[in-house]
């Protein structure tokens, strides 16, 4: 500019820039997120070891925050790469191509030896890992290079591929050094790293600045354990926390009616059902089992007891799982038909000893009481017990010696793999402890279906399997359990998903 000194030009330019900044609309500037997200979870994990813990939602506090698996689910529950970028299945081998440039929170690189270590530790004969059965079919691993490893099986079990979502990667050197303290000193590859765990009180994680993927917007998460429903809700209402799980259906109004809060819900891959002992009279007769399904109005139960947040079961397995979209004849509520079936089977006025958990699943006791009522309406005499969990599950797994003719349970297929349910509940090798159901043809179908890698063909196979199960009715099919999350209304970046993992790293909450 002619006639102006360098200083004057710089001054003008700065002034112009300042004026422009003041004039920029507020929403165009990046909004600051809260420094610490405060979460209240209903149960304390007790230890943070991903191989030694069984149960949602406790997992989600440290996985996928601190720990990650080689494979994962996207929001549509498709199997996608995570620490493994991609994979190939050739015969009975699964080759994983691991993401380069990933390191653990202690700076050690994540490489193929981590996967080898995990597989060997979990499948060892003396292993106490609770997820052992998920990958027990892997008998050998071969490391090709730092980022390529093959898992070898005797047969091409599709389930093992799907089950890899349950195998979290632990840094081997740290695991060996920490020994039993690994449960309180987790070191993973996740977007958050461990800061502090006080059992019974809280867990704190903070953003891992060296994370290879998108960094979380929130710097810290503090998880607290509040087992009492009323207290957990109060903590959300008072603003002490911004996220809670397990909002009881009968208290939804406290969240939905509060202008500061909102309810997030989804149907999960967990089916709630009552197993029926098919190895004792009169339940060995299919007509009796079908009568039980016609006698119970599972839609009314979902509508009233679960306040419309649950979906009544229309297939033996949640619809979003492979094969769960089978179109099956409806067990519509029909007490007259139920009575006719019972009469034809000579089971009118039969006695049913029923058991249910109490607080393990959402409204489990209340659902069992409703089932009791429905069955009594069609003339059955029902004795219902609802003991505490350890006593209850101990009785149920006595199998043919269990006192319950019917028992309420939930089965969560967090791997989205149908074999996980079909094998455990409908294959006669495993049904002794649940229903005693034996069907050799079905066994054969299940054994064959798990070896089908092609998803379209596998879907067809499972349609047939679930159609048989539906017709044979070794279960009273109730509903798919909902996930009910209460959060601060301003929260974004989070939605509960059917696999029940709570994905905290994507959450944003304005300060």
């Amino acid at each position, binding site marked *: 500019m002619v006639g102006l000194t360098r200083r004057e030009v710089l001054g003008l330019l700065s002034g112009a820039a300042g004026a422009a900044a003041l004039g920029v609309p507020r929403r165009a500037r990046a909004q600051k997120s809260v420094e610490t997200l405060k979460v209240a979870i209903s149960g304390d994990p007790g230890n943070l070891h991903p191989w030694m813990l069984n149960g949602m939602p406790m997992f989600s506090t440290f996985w996928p925050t601190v720990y990650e698996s080689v494979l994962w689910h996207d929001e549509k529950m498709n199997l996608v790469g995570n620490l493994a970028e991609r994979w190939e299945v050739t015969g009975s081998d699964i080759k994983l191509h691991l993401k380069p440039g990933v390191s653990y929170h202690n700076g050690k690189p994540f490489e193929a030896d981590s996967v080898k270590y995990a597989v060997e530790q979990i499948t060892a004969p003396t292993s106490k890992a609770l997820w052992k059965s998920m990958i027990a079919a892997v008998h050998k691993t071969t490391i090709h290079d730092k980022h390529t490893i093959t898992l070898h099986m005797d047969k091409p079990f599709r389930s093992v591929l799907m089950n890899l979502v349950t195998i979290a990667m632990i840094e081997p050197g740290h695991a060996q050094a920490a020994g039993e303290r690994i449960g309180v000193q987790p070191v993973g590859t996740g977007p958050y790293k461990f800061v502090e765990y006080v059992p019974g009180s809280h867990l704190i994680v903070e953003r891992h600045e060296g994370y290879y993927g998108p960094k979380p917007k929130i710097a810290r998460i503090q998880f607290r354990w509040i087992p009492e429903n009323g207290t957990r809700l109060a903590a959300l*209402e008072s603003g002490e926390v911004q996220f809670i799980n397990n909002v009881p259906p009968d208290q939804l109004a406290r969240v939905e009616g509060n202008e500061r809060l909102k309810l997030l819900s989804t149907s999960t891959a967990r089916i709630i059902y009552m197993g029926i002992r098919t190895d004792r009279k009169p339940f060995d007769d299919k007509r009796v089992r079908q009568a039980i399904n016609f006698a119970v109005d599972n839609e009314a139960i979902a509508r009233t007891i679960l306040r419309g947040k649950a979906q009544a079961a229309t297939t033996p397995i949640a619809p979003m799982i492979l094969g769960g979209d089978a179109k099956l004849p409806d067990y519509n509520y029909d007490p007259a038909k139920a009575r006719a079936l019972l009469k034809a089977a000579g089971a009118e006025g039969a006695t049913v000893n029923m058991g249910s958990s109490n607080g393990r699943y959402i409204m489990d006791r209340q659902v069992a009481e409703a089932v009791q009522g429905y069955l009594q309406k069609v003339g059955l005499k029902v004795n219902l017990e609802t003991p505490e969990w350890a006593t209850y599950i101990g009785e149920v797994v006595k199998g043919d010696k269990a006192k319950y003719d019917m028992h309420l349970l939930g089965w969560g297929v967090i791997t989205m793999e149908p074999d996980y349910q079909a094998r455990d509940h409908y294959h006669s090798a495993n049904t002794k402890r649940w229903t005693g159901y034996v069907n050799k043809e079905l066994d054969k179908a299940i054994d064959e279906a798990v070896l089908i890698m092609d998803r379209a063909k596998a879907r067809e196979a499972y349609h047939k399997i679930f159609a048989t199960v539906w017709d044979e009715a070794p279960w009273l099919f109730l509903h798919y359990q909902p996930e009910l999350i209460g959060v601060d209304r301003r929260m974004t970046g989070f939605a509960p998903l059917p696999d029940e993992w709570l994905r905290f790293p994507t959450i944003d909450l304005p300060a």
Partner: protein
Amino acid sequence: MPVRYIVRRSLHSLLLLLGVSLVVFLLLHVVPGDPATVLLGEQATPERVAEIRRALGLDRPLAEQYWRFVSRAVRGDFGQSIRAMRPVLPYVLERLPATVELSVGALLVSAGLGIPLGVLAAVRRRSVWDRLSLNLALLAQSAPNFWVGLLLIALFSVKLGLLPVSGRGGFAHLVLPSLTLAIFFVGLVVRLTRSGMLEVLSQDYVRTAWAKGMPERRVVFRHALKNALIPIVTVLGLQVGTLLGGAVVTETVFAWPGMGLLAVQAISQRDYPVVQAIVLLLGAAFVAINWLVDVSYTLLDPRIQHA
């Protein structure tokens, strides 16, 4: 100091603790439910349950398991938590300060509210203060403390926003849980103090003190209350043991990370080593406190002789 009495009392206490350890061990193994099945949950196959029971030593004969437990316990080794997979003693002791803090808070509230109200009721017998104190005591003893806790949370935390809802932190975090835990004991202390004071106030030496024209304050606090305190100290001493072990409901309502909550979780999970350790430690605390109470009698009233 009656040495023989103290030695005898101490031996008696040790035998008592051994008895407690045996009872809790047997009870845990007799009640339905198994740690391996609970750990595996719905995934409990007979093979995996057997594997884990073997790994935990639960397949050994009961007598062998008990002997291993006791012989280690005397050395301070209570084994490993089945759930947490960590040594039990430090795991449990981590929770002790929280329970002690809550118990002391509740004790101070019980004594701080209960004794003055009881004294007032006795000194102003049959007045409106007396009736008010007794009715408050009855209400306090009748109200279920989980209900009281939830009510206090709804009012002071959610509605008024004055105090935290849950968890352990500074003094503010201690207020509601202490009040909740103390509520029953406040009622008990009011009634005990009132009846103790009434009995003492009717004694000849107190009448003599009145007759001598001694000020009311001196008669009540220096002469009457000091003597009425003996049964109150006994009860408060016994309550400390109850408070330590009985804070379960309060700790659950307020998510207070104490031993009570841990005990409940350990029982539901059949985490045998943790339950055994907690029962023994609380039992030892209870026994020790009772021992102290007995000894303190001698200090309060030299006339009390120990046979």
